[in-house]
C-alpha cells in the first residue's frame, strides 16, 4: 500500500520537508522509491516561471538525443540545473547517470501564439522526447512544463534523499507545492514512469489505492487524448480523468468527484441538478473508479485538492497552520512537518467530500 503526501505553502519550501513528511510513514510503504512533483517553483527557477522546464533522467547519450530534439524544434536553453549528487557507497539507489533540469525559451515562431497552442506544443515535445528516449532506455522525460519539476528514482527514499542532497535545506531548490510518494509500482514491473505523482499539462495526481476499474478507464482513455499513454500504473487513470474533465471538457473541479465516484442513483434522484448528474454518470461511466483510493491532485493554477473513493476505504488527513497546509496518508507525517499546529483543526475528509486549498491557503470543503 502506498503512502502519499503533499505540501502547499505560502513560502517556498524545500523538498526536505517532503522527505520528512514521508519518512515517518515508512512502515506503511515499502521504501522502494521516491517520486516528487513540485509546482510554483522558487530558488533558481523562480525567475523562469513562464518558461518550460524539462525534468530528465538519462544516460549520456540520452542527454544528446533530448537536446538535439529540442534544438531542432527551435527551443533555446536558458537555464540548466544539475543537482549535485552524493554517490556514497552502500546507498540503496538505482541511479541514472544524469539528472537534468533545463529551462527553455519557446521557439521564435511560437512565441506569439496563444497559451493553448504553446501548451499543445509542450505536450507534443514531451511525448516525442519520451518516445525517442525509450530506445535502449536512454532516459525518462518526466515533465516539460512551466514552473514544474519532477524527480523520480528507484531505491530507498532516505538514500535517494542523501544521494541528491535533499536532506539539506537550501534556498536554491524550493517550491510552494510539493507532492511526494515513496514507493515504486511494486504490483507490476518496476518502471520509473510508473511511480506517482504523474504530471500532464500542469495537472499532477498521486494516489493511494487500487483502481479496480483500471481496465474500463484505460480502454476509454486510450482513445480520448494523445497524451493519455503509458498506463504503467492504475493511478495514472486519475490524472487523465482529471485532465479530461477539467481541461478538455472545461468543467469545474467539483465535477471531477461526480465523474470518478458518482452518487448512487437514489441520491441523484433527490438532487436539483439530477439531469446534469445523470448525464455525467451516463456519458462518463467508463471513467468511474472503484476500489479503495485516496487521490491528491494539483491543478495548473496550483490549487491542491484531495478526495477519496465512494466507500472511504483509504485514509487521508489534512493538517495546517497559517503558512502551510499538509495532506498526508497518516497523521504522523503531519506531526513531523507541523508539530506545533492546532491538531483540532485537522480534517479527515469523508467519502463524499473534496477538500481544496487555494493559493492563499483557504481550505474549502465541498460536499459532492
Amino acid at each position, binding site marked *: 500500500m502506498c503512502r502519499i503526501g503533499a505540501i502547499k505553502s505560502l513560502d517556498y519550501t524545500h523538498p526536505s520537508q517532503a522527505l520528512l513528511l514521508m519518512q515517518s510513514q515508512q512502515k506503511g510503504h515499502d521504501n522502494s522509491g521516491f517520486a516528487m512533483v513540485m509546482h510554483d517553483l522558487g530558488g533558481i527557477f523562480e525567475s523562469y516561471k513562464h518558461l518550460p522546464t524539462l525534468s530528465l533522467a538519462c544516460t549520456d547519450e540520452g542527454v544528446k538525443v533530448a537536446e538535439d530534439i529540442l534544438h531542432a524544434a527551435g527551443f533555446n536553453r536558458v537555464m540548466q540545473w544539475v543537482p549535485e549528487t552524493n554517490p556514497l557507497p552502500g546507498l540503496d539507489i538505482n541511479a541514472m547517470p544524469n539528472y537534468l533540469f533545463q529551462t527553455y525559451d519557446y521557439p521564435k515562431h511560437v512565441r506569439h501564439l496563444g497559451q493553448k497552442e504553446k501548451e499543445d506544443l509542450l505536450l507534443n515535445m514531451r511525448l516525442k522526447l519520451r518516445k525517442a528516449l525509450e530506445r535502449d532506455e536512454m532516459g525518462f522525460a518526466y515533465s516539460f512544463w512551466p514552473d514544474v519539476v519532477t524527480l523520480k528514482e528507484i531505491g530507498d527514499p532516505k538514500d535517494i534523499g542523501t544521494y541528491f542532497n535533499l536532506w539539506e535545506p537550501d534556498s536554491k531548490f524550493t517550491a510552494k507545492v510539493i507532492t511526494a510518494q515513496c514507493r515504486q509500482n511494486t504490483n507490476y514491473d518496476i518502471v520509473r514512469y510508473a511511480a506517482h505523482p504523474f504530471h500532464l499539462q500542469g495537472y499532477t495526481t498521486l494516489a493511494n489505492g487500487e483502481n479496480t476499474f483500471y481496465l474500463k478507464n484505460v480502454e*476509454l482513455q486510450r482513445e480520448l487524448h494523445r497524451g493519455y499513454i503509458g498506463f504503467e500504473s492504475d493511478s495514472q487513470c486519475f490524472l487523465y480523468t482529471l485532465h479530461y474533465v477539467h481541461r478538455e*471538457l472545461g468543467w469545474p473541479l467539483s465535477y471531477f468527484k461526480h465523474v470518478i465516484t458518482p452518487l448512487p442513483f437514489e441520491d441523484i434522484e433527490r438532487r436539483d441538478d439530477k439531469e446534469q448528474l445523470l448525464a455525467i454518470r*451516463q456519458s462518463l461511466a467508463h471513467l468511474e473508479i472503484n476500489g479503495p483510493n485516496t487521490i491528491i491532485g494539483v491543478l495548473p493554477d496550483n490549487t491542491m485538492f484531495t478526495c477519496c473513493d465512494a466507500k472511504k476505504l483509504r485514509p487521508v488527513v489534512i493538517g495546517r497552520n497559517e503558512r502551510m497546509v499538509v495532506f498526508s496518508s497518516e497523521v504522523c507525517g503531519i506531526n513531523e512537518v507541523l508539530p506545533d499546529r492546532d491538531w483540532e483543526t485537522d480534517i479527515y475528509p469523508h467519502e463524499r467530500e473534496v477538500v481544496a486549498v487555494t493559493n492563499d491557503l483557504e481550505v474549502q470543503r465541498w460536499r459532492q
Partner: protein
Amino acid sequence: METMKVQNITPNDLYWKIRYNASRCTLCGSCVAACSFRAIEPKVERRRMVFSEGELPEPKQRFSAVPVIKQVNSIKNYCRGCGICEKVCPNDAIGPVRNPDTRHPIITRCLAGDSIKRGGRKNLGSTTRTLDKIRIGRISQMTDPSLDAQRHTFDLLAPFGRILPPAKLPMGVTPEGLLQMQKEAPPVGWIYPVIIGDMSIGALSWRMWEAVAMATAYLNEECGIPVRMCSGEGGMPVRLLKSRYLKYMILQIASGHFGWNRIIKAMPHMTEDPAGVLIKIGQGAKPGGGGLLMAQKVAEHIQAIRGVPKADLLSPPNHQGLYSIEESVQKMFLSFNAAFKFRVPVAIKVAASATSVSVFNNLVRDPYNIVGGFFLDGIDGGTGAAHEVSLDHTGHPIVSKLRDCYLAAVNQGRQGQIPLWAAGGLGKTGDLAADAFKMICLGANGVFTGKLILQMAGCVGNDQGRCNACNTGLCPVGITTQEPALVHRLDPERVAQNIVNYFLAMDQEFKKLMAPIGNSSLPVGRSDALVSVDKPVADKLQIQFVC
C-alpha cells in the same frame, strides 16, 4: 391375421413411449383428461387368462375385455413427454419414457411433406457452455478489499437509451461554476440489468402475460427493483396502455406491426410514457425468420388486440421497405422517436450473426444519436414457434459476438454510447445472475431473458426435446395456449410470486458476485475480472487463460 405394414407408426417410432402399469391403474381417467395433446386414450384390450380349478391341472382359458390406457400412434397426437399424465396420476401408473430409438424426425417429414415446427430452444445435444468455462477469477483480497454483499450498497442499474460522448453533452458552465443543460439530451432510462424479454400476448396465454406484467409492477412498486418488461410483437391490452404501469413496459414493433393500430389509437390517452420502444429485426432462436403465430392460438382477444381474423399470423422475415441500416436509422428510429416526441428511447433487437459487428458499427456511428440500445440475441434463445431446422441449425452463439461488438466500440472509443443488451440461452442452467454477470464483465450493459421466465412459471419443456409444443396452442401448463381449459391450469398469482422471488434471489446473487471483486457499480467491460480454463475461449474473448 392381417399382413403387417412396416410403415405403420408405433410408439417405438416416437420420441416418447408411455409406460403404463395396468395393475396400478384405477381407471380414474385423470391422465386422459389432462393430456392436452390427446396422446393417450382409453381402449379395451382382449385378455386371455389360463386357469385350473380341479385337483389336477386342467388348464382352461377365459377371455375378457379389459379397459386400459394406450398411447396414440400418430404423428399428430404424439406424446411430447410433458409428464402431465404422471403428475395427475394418483397411483404412479403412467408416465412418459424417452425413446432413444425414435424415428420421429424422419417419419414426420415423410408423412407430412412439411417442415417440422415447434417451440423451445435449440435441442441438439450441446457441449459445455462457453459461460461455464469462465469464472470470476480476480478476487479482491489485500490491497483492494472485497465489499460486503450484505452491508455495502450497490448500484445495480443499466442504461437504456442513447448516450452522448462526454464532449457532445449539451452542457455549459454558469457564472456560479455549475454545469447546466443547454438543450435536451437523448432520453435514457436507468433500469435493472435484466429485462423480461419480448414474449407477445399471443404467444403467451393471457394469464401468463398478465402474471409477468403483475410481477414487473410488483418488483417496481414494492421491491424497488426497476425491472422492465418488453411486450413482444402483438401489442397489449388497451387498459394497460392507458394505465400508469405503462412506464414499466417496453413496446415492441416487429415486421408484422401487430398491435400497433391499438397502440397508436391509445397514444392520446396515455398517462405515462412507455419505458422504451424495441424494434425487432431478428430473433436469436430463428434468425432470418419472422414471427409465427399459428391460427389455433389466435383467440378472440388476440384478434381484437391485433385487429386480425383467426388465421396463421406470419410476420415477414424482414421489415418491408427497409433495405439498409442507414434507412432503418432514418426511417424507423426517427419516426418512433418522433412518435413519443423524443422522450422515449428506441432500441433495436437483432439476431447474433457473423455480421453483427458491421450492423453495430453502422448504428454506433450514426450521426443522429438516436439508436438507444443494441439488443443482441444468440442461438440458444427460445421461441414460441419456429421451424425446427432453424432452431437447431441457424444462428450464432451470443458470448463471443457480444464481446466482438463491445471491443469494436472500444476500438473506436465509443463504448457505452449504445448500450449493449445480450440474450440467447442465458440462465439456461437456472443461474441467470452468474451468466448475466459474466456477460456484463465482457461488455454487456445488461441482459434480457424470456424462456427462463416461462420456466419460473412452471414450463416443463427442456432442451432435450421435452414438450417444446408452444406452437401448438396446447401447452399443458397453460403458459403458451389460448385454450380456456388449459389457461385455467395456470395460477397467475403463483407465477407472479415465483418471478418476484427469483428476481429477489438474483439480486442477492449479483451482490455476491460484485462484492468479491470489490465493485459497487456494475463492472461493465471488466474482462480483467474473468478467467477461463479453456485456451481458445480465453484467446477469443481476450481474457486471462488459467489452468
